[in-house]
């Protein structure tokens, strides 16, 4: 009898608990990705000047006539630089073959101490402590003996990808 009473007390106790308050929770994770600002500015066009017929004219990336670009993005960040050169310079219906030369880069505006890209189309480079990366590009052309006189132009395009 004593056991029965004790057991009943337990049952009543559990019945009381079964209607007690409850707490439950769940957590949602939140995410947001911030993109870095980046700009590419052309500082100078590539200029071969006046050509001598039948003679190769080369502008080295270190020359003053080289094209110059400034990329500004995240600081000390590895970026991927791709330069697309024109296959020909054009003057109306006349063309002149353009030959690529590997471009160079530096974190300061000094072409003389710049580093050569691994490929003629560019490659990876690291921005400076201020986020700047200077890029210079040259090229080589030759006017044939029967090349029509005129101003020959082409478009050089640079793409910089910052992760």
């Amino acid at each position, binding site marked *: 009898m004593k056991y029965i009473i004790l057991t009943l007390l337990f*049952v009543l106790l559990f019945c009381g608990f079964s209607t007690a308050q*409850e*707490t*439950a929770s769940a957590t*949602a994770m939140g995410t947001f990705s911030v993109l870095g600002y980046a700009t590419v500015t052309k500082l100078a066009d590539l200029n071969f000047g006046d050509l001598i017929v039948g003679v190769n004219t080369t502008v080295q990336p270190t020359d003053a006539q080289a094209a110059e670009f400034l990329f500004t993005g*995240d600081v000390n960040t590895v970026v991927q630089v791709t330069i697309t050169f024109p296959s020909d310079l054009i003057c109306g219906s006349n063309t002149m073959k353009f030959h690529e030369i590997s471009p160079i880069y530096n974190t300061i505006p000094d072409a003389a101490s710049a580093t050569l890209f691994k490929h003629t189309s560019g490659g990876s480079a690291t921005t400076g402590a201020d986020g700047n990366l200077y890029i210079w590009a040259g090229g080589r052309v030759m006017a044939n003996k029967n090349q029509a006189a005129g101003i020959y132009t082409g478009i050089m395009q640079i793409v910089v990808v910052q992760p």
Partner: protein
Amino acid sequence: MKSFCIIFLLMLANAVLYCQSDLTVVKLNDISFGTDFGGREKRLDHSDVGAAKFQIQSKIETNATITIMLPSFFISADGSEKISASFNDRSAAWSMIDNVSSRTSFDPRQPLSLSLKQNQIVYVWIAGTLHPSRSQRACKYSGSITLTVHTLPKN
């Protein structure tokens, strides 16, 4: 002895019932503010697909109080950078039905009291606004929202 065994079994059954929770809270969606540039306020509405979504269900008729722990900041993975987060009186919404039109907006900063019927499902959506600075470092930021439901059975 026989009576004792029967009562013991009843007690065991009741104990099992006691162990089974009457209340469940499930996260259905995380909150995603997507991707954007720094310096631009990133506002997310509770009706946006990126809003956090929870499901609450009670097996018994009950009075529920919902409290939400909101982040003050979203933090970069290395902990060195943070973006302030803010919430207003319309950042959250609840509904007994899983659609936009039936939602009732509420302030997630304040506790919400709801009366739940037996086996009633309640959906809760939570959004907010992030304030990245113009100089905000480009990387992934994260934060968390914890929804807690406290129930008291109806008399």
